[in-house]
């Protein structure tokens, strides 16, 4: 029933349209060209897009941190999947009305409406059933994706001249971005960033302990709505640069990276913003000098690379330091078991036992980076002697 050209899946999988900025003619090699773009020597339009992407990365990092702390990181995914439906429907409406030009604001409006519907359904399911938020998000997200594919396959039957515009929104395209588009993206991103910083304390309080925040008189539901709106704003801002399928990753990856390096909210938000900015900077500039390389996936890959490296080498929470600590403690335990009196006297103050083998955050891991090199005597759970 589906021939190749009609099958929406095949269509989604097909190569996105050319989406790179023009390579710079005057640069001698690819590396020089990249460095030139990196240092903002790539011409006005390239710079505007690059700056816009960096602002997007900053706000995605900051907003994404709170979404992650709230346990709602994947809401962005649901929003972006729902915006597929919104954009497709808006496009169909426009075609039905006989309008030829693709109107960006209308498509965005469709995306925003559909995203709102997704968020509202998620919150409703979470509050009114016993299902977990995770389940609600997954259900809404995949259902929207299904609906999105159906709607998009319908748009395929409508004449194709303006279809390219839709593809750009799905996969992201910095090439077709005008500086006005970039400006719009930057404004949305800065607004989301500003709101996040202004609400820093209340968002933290609600994410940490909702019931306490409620008891103190904070408008918990309103703040939930505001956070969802901020996530939505970043998703809309990232629509053109990163594409709706990948924008969720831009919210999650920098925040996850930052969490590995930090133990407080404020540094976490700052590191996440920096990671997002760095990923956008590197990804967008790489795409500008590589023919046929779309910016969105490159930005996401840069963010993922940063996460991967952090996962390995981060102090305290990284895999490597965990392994190192495990080795130290295991060696001490073996010495103790071997039972030389000297060894026993040496580590007599470490009666940690199996009790300390609990969750990483409560066990030996808690010694923190400061004492990572210290002996096992420091590695046990913080003793209660300090208390009265």
């Amino acid at each position, binding site marked *: 029933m589906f021939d190749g050209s009609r099958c929406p899946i095949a269509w989604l999988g097909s190569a996105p349209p050319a989406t790179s900025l023009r390579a710079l003619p005057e640069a001698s090699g690819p590396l020089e060209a990249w460095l030139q773009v990196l240092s903002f020597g790539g011409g006005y339009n390239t710079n505007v897009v690059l700056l816009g992407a960096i602002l997007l990365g900053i706000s995605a990092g900051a907003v994404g941190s709170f979404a992650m702390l709230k346990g709602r990181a994947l809401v962005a995914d649901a929003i972006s999947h729902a915006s597929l439906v919104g954009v497709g429907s808006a496009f169909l409406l426009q075609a039905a009305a006989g309008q030829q030009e693709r109107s960006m604001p209308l498509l965005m409006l469709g995306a925003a409406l559909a995203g709102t519907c997704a968020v509202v359904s998620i919150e409703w399911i979470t509050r009114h059933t016993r299902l977990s938020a995770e389940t609600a998000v997954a259900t809404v997200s995949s259902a929207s994706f299904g609906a999105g594919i159906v709607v998009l396959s319908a748009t395929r039957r409508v004449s194709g001249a303006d279809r390219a515009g839709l593809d750009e929104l799905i996969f992201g395209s910095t090439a077709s971005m005008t500086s006005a588009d970039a400006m719009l993206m930057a404004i949305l991103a800065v607004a989301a960033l500003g709101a996040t910083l202004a609400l820093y304390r209340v968002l933290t309080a609600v994410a940490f302990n909702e019931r306490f925040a409620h*008891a103190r008189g904070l408008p918990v539901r309103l703040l939930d709505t505001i956070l969802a709106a901020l996530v939505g704003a970043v998703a809309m801002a990232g629509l053109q640069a990163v594409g709706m399928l990948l924008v969720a990753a831009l919210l999650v990856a920098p925040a996850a990276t930052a969490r590995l390096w930090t133990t*407080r909210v404020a540094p*976490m938000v700052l590191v996440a913003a920096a990671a997002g900015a760095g990923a956008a900077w590197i990804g967008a500039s790489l795409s500008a000098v590589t023919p046929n390389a779309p910016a969105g996936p490159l930005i996401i890959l840069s963010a993922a690379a940063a996460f991967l490296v952090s996962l390995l080498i981060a102090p305290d929470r990284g895999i490597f330091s965990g392994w190192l600590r495990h080795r130290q403690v295991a060696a001490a335990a073996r010495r103790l078991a071997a039972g030389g009196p000297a060894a026993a006297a040496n580590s007599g103050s470490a009666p940690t036992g199996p009790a300390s083998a609990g969750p990483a*955050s*409560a066990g030996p891991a808690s010694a923190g980076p400061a004492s990572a090199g210290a002996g096992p005597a420091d590695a046990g759970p913080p003793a209660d002697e*300090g*208390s009265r």
Partner: protein
Amino acid sequence: MILRRSEARAPLALRSISVAYRGVPALWDVSWEAREGSMTAIVGPNGAGKSSLLNAAIGALRPLAGEAFFWGQSFASARSRVAYVPQRESVDWDFPVTALQVVEMGAARRLDWLLPDWLLPDWLLPTWVRRQEGSREHRAEARSCLEDLGLGAFADRPIGQLSGGQQQRVFLARAMAQQADLLLLDEPFAGVDSETEDALFHRLRSLCDEGTTIIAVHHDLESARTRFDDALLLSGSVIATGSAREALSEDNVRRAFASGSATLASSDPGARQLA
């Protein structure tokens, strides 16, 4: 709304509160008044609705019917005089926040939430908006609350690195930083060793002597009898109230723990009194 005189005075007065989860009753027709300056234990078997009672009182849970009054006012108007300590399990302890920062959340006043000091320093504000206490003072206040509970050395530790008993004390310090007249504690001694429990009781008692009313969901019958003044024995509905020793008599306790959900089935209080 006409209040009886005792209702208007009591730090917490519940009037015919019923709570249900998706049509399944958890609390049925609970009326009760706390005595000012006393320590009350809310005791009952699992699922007796002890936590639901506190949550319904502060409006975190919407009751099917009934009302809660704090000194005769709604919770919304009396909020600043009430401190609530949730169950320890209700929080993600891997959250990136230090012990001191948690306690500061208790010390923060209304304006601080929206205008953190670093965003808008005090001297920039017109005098009529100015914070009554600077946030530096809050930090000192929060620190002294932590030290008060023997956690001074742990102020800058991420909360995930604290033991269960220490986490519980951080929550208590946060409540103390609120300088409230009524403390609502949900299982404050869960996962706390006996030595710490002694210290906490000591501290709560001294707060009580200063006039604070304390209401705690408590699981241990023995210490509820000996350490608390009053008790509210729950099993879906009120089984007994009064002084801790009387309310928690062998007979009452047996009824509460034997009946389980059966109490809800026969929601006629007269019938239960005879049983």
